């Protein structure tokens, strides 16, 4: 039997559209498959909302075939069951997932089920001359990058958020086929009671020029008032890390980081933010990063441009006063700075 080398991408969806990182995974699968002289396929898992037109739209990102499995959306297990079933029967050597929480869960369990290898936080994937996949992944809170190869089959690739660009071509469509899979005995022991609840007003952090973000070190909801004053002095908006949002100090809609929105401000002020990798990934496009944290060992000081080791309660009121006063008194500098 000819060894198979096809590439299958999982596409996550909600409310009638696919996740951007999933479209990136499909595009990347198509790129790799074409180098291998194979066809890329995508797999989707969900209910009636997955109509033919929606599934076929993945053809615009390079999938030639789309497998559709009817099972609850948003949970890992049904997706693992469906993907494993397709990979066992079909000509697929590699599975690609776009990352995020569900991508990691599905990819990890899939590798365990099929006895394959899995890599995560993948920034780049490429093929060797002999058609084997090698990935570049980030490790140790981004302080190292590692090239990893797969031993045996299959290989599961979980991209870092935003690592694979969605590349759209007009006019291409995909063949949609339904797959029937055997659910694993424990698949119905996890049930989605409520999915994708949004909390708080919608904010457009993606467009903000200046973002003042608060993390666990802010200490509570009242601490965010100083952040709001600082944001207003700088003409910016307030954001919060996942830890601060989960603690109920600031609304979900203001969350930045890997599971929040990716942002690209000219200035990012991180207050009491430890700066773990997941947060860093979400703000990597920021122009300049100013970090204020009482813990000199906080990881954020490894990637900030300017850091102040000290107490927010002492520093922020003074900074707000200084900025307000400076804004009133001094004309903008005409000196060129680089």
């Amino acid at each position, binding site marked *: 039997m000819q060894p198979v080398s096809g590439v299958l991408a999982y596409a996550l969806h909600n409310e009638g559209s696919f996740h951007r990182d999933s479209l990136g995974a499909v595009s990347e699968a198509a790129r790799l498959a074409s180098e291998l002289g194979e066809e890329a396929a995508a797999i989707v898992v969900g209910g009636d909302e997955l109509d033919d037109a929606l599934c076929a739209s993945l053809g615009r990102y390079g999938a030639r075939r789309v497998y559709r499995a009817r099972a609850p959306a*948003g949970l*890992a*297990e049904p997706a693992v069951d469906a993907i494993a079933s397709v990979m066992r029967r079909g000509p697929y050597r590699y599975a690609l997932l776009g990352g995020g*929480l569900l991508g*990691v*869960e599905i*990819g*990890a*369990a899939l*590798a*365990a*089920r099929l006895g*394959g*290898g*899995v890599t*995560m936080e993948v920034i780049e994937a490429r093929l060797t001359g002999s058609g084997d996949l090698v990935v570049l992944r*980030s490790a*140790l*809170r981004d*302080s*190292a*990058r*590692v*090239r*990893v*190869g797969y*031993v045996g089959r299959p290989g599961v690739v*979980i991209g870092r958020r935003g690592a694979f660009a969605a590349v759209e071509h007009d006019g291409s469509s995909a063949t949609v086929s339904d797959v029937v899979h055997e659910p694993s*005995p*424990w698949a119905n*022991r*996890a*049930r*989605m009671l409520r*999915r*994708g*609840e*949004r909390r708080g007003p919608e904010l457009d952090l993606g467009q903000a020029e200046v973002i003042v973000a608060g993390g666990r070190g802010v200490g509570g909801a009242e601490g965010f008032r100083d952040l709001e004053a600082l944001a207003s002095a*700088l003409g910016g908006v307030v954001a919060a890390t*996942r*830890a601060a949002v*989960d603690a109920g100090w600031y609304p*979900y809609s203001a969350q930045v980081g890997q*599971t929040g929105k990716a942002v690209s401000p*000219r*200035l990012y002020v991180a207050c009491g933010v430890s700066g773990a990798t997941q947060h860093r990934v979400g703000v990597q496009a920021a122009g*300049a990063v*100013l970090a204020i944290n*009482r813990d000199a060992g906080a990881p954020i000081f490894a990637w900030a441009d*300017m*850091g*102040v080791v*000290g*107490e927010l309660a*002492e*520093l922020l009121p003074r*900074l707000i006063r*200084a*900025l307000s006063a400076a*804004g009133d008194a001094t004309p903008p500098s005409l000196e060129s700075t680089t």
Partner: protein
Amino acid sequence: MLVKEVPDPGVPKRLDPTSGRLDRTGARGLNPFDAHALEAAVRLRESAIPPVEKIVAVTMGPDGAARVLRRALSMGADRALHLSDPVLAGSCVVATGYALARVLERERPDLVLLGQQSDDGECYAMASIVGEQLGMPALSQVSRLELAGATLRCERQAEYGYDLVELDLPAVVSVGDALNEPRYPSLKALVRAREAPVETLSAAAAGIEPHRVGAIGSHTRVLAVAEPAARAPVELVDGSHPEAAVERVVAWLGERGLR
């Protein structure tokens, strides 16, 4: 309970350029996220509905990793199991999950708890791999946990907002740091934990097939380690003199045209 020894956050971490493995020298301690998992286990026992029979802490790693088990004992674990064997060195994440699952299944747990992440980023995947190996539902990055009889209600932030998921026990759950505030162990508990026994298991004793772990049993191979492109070092200002620090920050913002 799965716990893991990680480098002290203050110690710079590096990968050995030849083996691609984490350089394990330097001060080490309990993965901070595992402390939240331990706290969750202790709180479940305190709420006592249904009664928690026993909290067992399990780790895998070289000899020194037993330190984190003592820490777990001081925080409320009743027993500690240390899976330690040279054949395990260099296991990929799937092989590690397989080995841990073999130890866990001996204990017949109703709930396996672990921290959602550690420095190497692979812990995000561990709950799913262990769940798959044990044939249990798994959920990761949980920020709220409620036990009612034999079902567990878990809230977490997923791609599209907050999800509420119900799991039937037995199950595997990884938790985030918003779940709770871990307590500090009392002096008495620390002393007791120092003297408490830690059971050590070899791979063979745990029923681990040697060809499925270590470098030979791994499904991925590190080919090269590269440092990311260096960036300009951070300018650090001492904030214990707030007036001077603020002056410097305002000047820095001005230099960049950011105010």
